[in-house]
C-alpha cells in the first residue's frame, strides 16, 4: 500500500476543486511567482502585509492537484498570522514534505499534515512545496523563484528525461 491513496484525500481534492483565496490581490505589498520548470507548475502569490502580519493573501496559477491544494490550504493557514509564525510554518511544512519532521512530534501544521504522504513520492514533493517556497520568496521580496538549481529548497531529485 503506497501513500498516494492517503494523499488524494477528500480535503485535498476539495481544495483542488474549490481553491480558497484564489486570484491576485489588488493592493498587494509583496508578490512572487513560483515555477517548477520540470513539470510546468506555475503559481503567483500576492500578499498584503500590515504591521508585519499577513493581512491578506491570494494565489493563482496552473498546477497539479497537490500543488493547488497545498497553496489553497497555505493561504488559509497563514492569513492573519505574523510573518514570523508564517515562516515557522514554511519551515515545518518543508521538513514534513521532505521527511525531516515527524508529524507525531509537536508542530503547528494542523490539517496541513494531510500532505505528509508526499515524503514517499519523491517526484511529487516539489509539487507540495512550491507554494510555500513562493510565499517565502514573496516575504523576502524575491520576484521569481523556481524549485530548481541553487534555488531548490531541498535539492530533491525529480525526473526530467525523454
Amino acid at each position: 500500500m503506497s501513500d498516494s491513496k492517503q494523499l488524494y484525500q477528500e480535503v485535498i481534492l476539495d481544495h483542488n476543486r474549490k481553491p480558497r483565496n484564489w486570484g491576485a490581490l489588488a493592493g498587494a505589498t509583496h508578490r512572487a511567482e513560483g515555477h517548477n520548470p520540470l513539470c510546468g507548475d506555475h503559481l503567483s502569490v500576492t500578499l498584503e502585509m500590515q504591521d508585519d502580519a499577513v493581512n491578506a493573501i491570494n494565489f493563482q496559477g496552473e498546477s497539479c492537484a497537490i500543488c493547488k491544494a497545498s497553496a489553497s490550504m497555505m493561504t488559509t493557514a497563514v492569513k492573519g498570522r505574523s510573518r514570523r509564525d508564517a515562516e515557522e510554518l514554511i519551515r515545518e511544512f518543508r521538513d514534513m514534505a521532505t521527511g525531516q519532521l515527524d508529524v507525531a512530534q509537536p508542530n503547528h501544521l494542523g490539517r496541513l499534515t494531510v500532505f505528509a504522504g508526499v515524503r514517499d513520492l519523491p517526484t511529487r514533493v516539489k509539487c507540495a512545496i512550491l507554494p510555500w517556497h513562493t510565499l517565502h520568496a514573496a516575504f523576502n521580496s524575491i520576484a521569481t523563484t523556481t524549485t530548481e538549481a541553487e534555488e531548490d529548497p531541498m535539492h530533491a531529485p525529480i525526473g526530467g528525461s525523454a
Partner: protein
Amino acid sequence: MNAPHTALKQREAGFDVERYRADFPILRSRVNGKPLVFLDNAASSQMPQPVLDRWIRYQTTQHANIHRAVHHLSEVATAEYEGARRKIQAFINAPEEREVIFTSGTTDAINLVAHGYGRKFIGPGDEIVLTTLEHHSNIVPWQMVAEEKGARIRVVPINDRGELAIDEYERLLGPRVKLVGLPHVSNALGTINPVREMIAAAHRHGIPVLVDGAQAVPHLPVDVRALDCDFYCFSGHKIYGPTGIGILYGKAALLEKMQPFKGGGDMILSVTFEKTTYNVIPHKFEAGTPPIAAAVTLGAAVDYLSEVGIERAAAHETDLLDCATEQVNRLPGVRIVGTAEHKAAVLSFIVDGVHPHDVGTLLNEEGVAIRTGHHCAQPVMKRYGIPATSRASFALYNTMAEVDALVAGIKKVQKVFR
C-alpha cells in the same frame, strides 16, 4: 467488447506476445501490489534475458581494454566491440562500418555533430532548420552553436494533428541553411515524419540532414541508405539494450571533414606536445575507453530485435496503439494529443480537469507506469497550449490486457477527481 477489439486480440495471438514477455524478467514485478504494467517505453525499454546474459558473459569471459594490448583478452574484447559495430551497421544498413560511431546515447551523438560539424561549418548569418516536434536534445546543442556563431534557428511548424507542415519546411530551405535537424518519430506525440522526402528536399539545396531516430529505431525498420540521411542518431536503452550507449551514423565524407568532439586516447595516431595527428573514423570520435560491455550488449539487443522481427513487433505495437486510441477516444473527458495519420507506439493524452502528474501518480497506484510532463519537448506543449500530457508508450512485450489496465486506470482517475 466491440468487434475491432476482438479482431485485434486475435491478431495478438498470432504474434505470441506471451512468449516474448517471458524473456523480460522485470515484467514479473509487482508495483503497489499490482502486476507491473510498463507503458513508459519511449523513455526507456526493458532488457530481455538473452541481452542481460550477454553483458554477464562479456564481463565474465571477454573483458579487457580494447585497441591496445597484444594479450588474448584485449583481442577478444576488441573483436566483440567491433563485431557489435558491424551488427549495428547491418541493422541500419549503413554502407560502411566506419560510419557507425559509438556514443553514450542520442544526446551525445547530436552534440558530437553540433560540435564536430556545426561549430566548424556554421557561421554568422547561417541558418539551422529544426522542427516544432524536436526533443530538447535536438534543440539545445544547435542553440549553443547558433549563439556562439551568430547563426539563426528556423522552426518548421506543425498542424493540429501534430504533423509537420511540409510546405513551410520547403519554404525555409535556402542558401543560408547549413543543416536540417528532424525527428524521425516525435517522442511526445508519436508522429512518424516523412523524413525521406524531407531529406530529399534538403539535398536539392545541398543541405545535410541529421535525423534524431531515438523513437524510430525501436518501432520501424530503419535503412539509412534508403533514407539517404547524412547523420542518424539513436540510443541503446530504447531498443532493449543498456543505458550509456548510443549510435551516431554519419556519411564517411562528412565525418572525415568534421573536427573531433572529445580529445583523448584512442582518437589519435600520434601525440607530441607540438602536434597531434587524429585517428581515422570512427576512432577519431571515440576518445578514451568506450563503454565496451554496453556496446557488445547493444549488439545482442539488435540481434534480439531482429530475431523477433522488427516488422512483426511494429505491427503488434500498431495494434496496441490502435486499440488504446479507440478505447481512450470513447472516454468522455479525455483528449488525445497528437492524432497524426502515421504514428508509432505513443499515446499522449489529457484528462479534463486533472493535471498529468496526478494522473501519473494515481495510475502508479494501479501498477501502471506512464510518463507525465512535457517529455523534454516544451515547444510541442506550447503549440497545444498545455503544460504537460500523460503519455503511454508501447513496446513489443505489451499486451491488450495492459491497454485495458491503462483504460481502467484512467477511469479510476476520473472517479477520484469527479
